[in-house]
């Protein structure tokens, strides 16, 4: 009876989130799936009117960069001819991106390898760090991914103009097209070029956002089923098992999205190098 009463109250709170008088504990129990994305400032700071507080987002970026530096520098510290397990994993990451750059940009893309490698490792690190319970996913905020995508977009455009001058504009008018079709194709190409940073950033941000919301929603099912009673607790095994499956899927998505971001940056670089194709 007590359990049922509590459930009724909880349902009532779910319907009306602004209901006054609920206790702190109940607020925690009904915390929405979006609460994990809240940015909490740790040290307030303001420079020239801009809010540059040190937040949980910045903290996790620092943690990711520190862990990556430790992983990469520590792995090649001994620099053995026959690599150990640690060195082998660092070399594997290096070779994975080196092959990607070689296949998608070509030989002359070698000079941009450090940038692509840093980009890939940072996104992969942030995505994976988001899978740690109680952590914060920096890549689940559009401003972070948009900054990364804007760097790629502006860099690629500058490289294109620096290498080919105005010949870079041939990118918008592909060869081998019947002349009347240019009226249609050039605007489409221009539009698709300028939506690149948007699609690149929204893809990464939406993937991380949707995955983490889905996990929190199923975690919420476990809590609300557990409040019903013995039968509910037995049924709560189902969402729990599904959440374990989702965790595995999210780790796959974390890797896949870092890969997609890196490979699309490579493809854009290739476009900048060979605009005539």
């Amino acid at each position: 009876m007590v359990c049922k009463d509590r459930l009724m109250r909880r349902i009532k709170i779910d319907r009306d989130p602004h209901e006054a008088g609920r206790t702190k504990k109940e607020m925690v129990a009904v915390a929405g799936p979006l609460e994990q994305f809240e940015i909490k400032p740790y040290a307030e700071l303001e420079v020239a009117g801009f809010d540059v507080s040190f937040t949980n987002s910045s903290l996790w970026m620092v943690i990711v960069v520190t862990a990556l530096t430790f992983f990469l520098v520590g792995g090649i510290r001994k620099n053995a001819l026959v690599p150990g397990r640690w060195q082998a994993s660092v070399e594997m990451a290096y070779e994975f991106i080196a092959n990607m750059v070689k296949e998608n940009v070509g030989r002359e893309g070698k000079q941009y390898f450090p940038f692509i490698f840093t980009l890939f490792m940072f996104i992969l690190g942030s995505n994976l760090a988001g899978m740690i319970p109680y952590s914060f996913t920096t890549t689940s905020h559009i401003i972070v991914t948009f900054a990364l995508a804007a760097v790629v977009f502006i860099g690629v455009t500058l490289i294109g103009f620096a290498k080919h001058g105005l010949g870079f504009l041939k990118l918008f008018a592909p060869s081998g097209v019947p002349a009347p079709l240019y009226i249609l194709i050039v605007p489409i190409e221009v539009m698709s070029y300028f939506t690149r940073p948007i699609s690149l950033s929204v893809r990464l941000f939406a993937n991380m956002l949707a995955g983490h919301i889905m996990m929190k929603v199923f975690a919420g099912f476990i809590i609300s089923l557990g409040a019903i009673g013995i039968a509910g607790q037995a049924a709560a095994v189902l969402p729990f098992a599904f959440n374990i499956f989702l965790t595995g899927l999210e780790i796959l998505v974390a890797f896949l999205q870092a890969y997609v971001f890196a490979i699309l940056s490579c493809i854009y670089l290739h476009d900048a190098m060979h605009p005539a194709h």
Partner: protein
Amino acid sequence: MELAAAKMIGAGIATLALAGVGIGLGNIFGSFLSGALRNPSAAPKVFGNLLLGFALTEAVALFALVIAFLILFT
């Protein structure tokens, strides 16, 4: 119509993009499977492209999700 109700309906309509994404994903994996069963030795070479196509198509569904969120929460 009330604004809140219209928002709910709009967010629901935004998920219609899933129909196209479902067709696309089925097409990608179906084509991969039929190709891989005809020539299994070529399958590992296109697996990277398969994942790329999967991620690009899945992103379209997530654009719809973002639109639904924008409708609901702004």
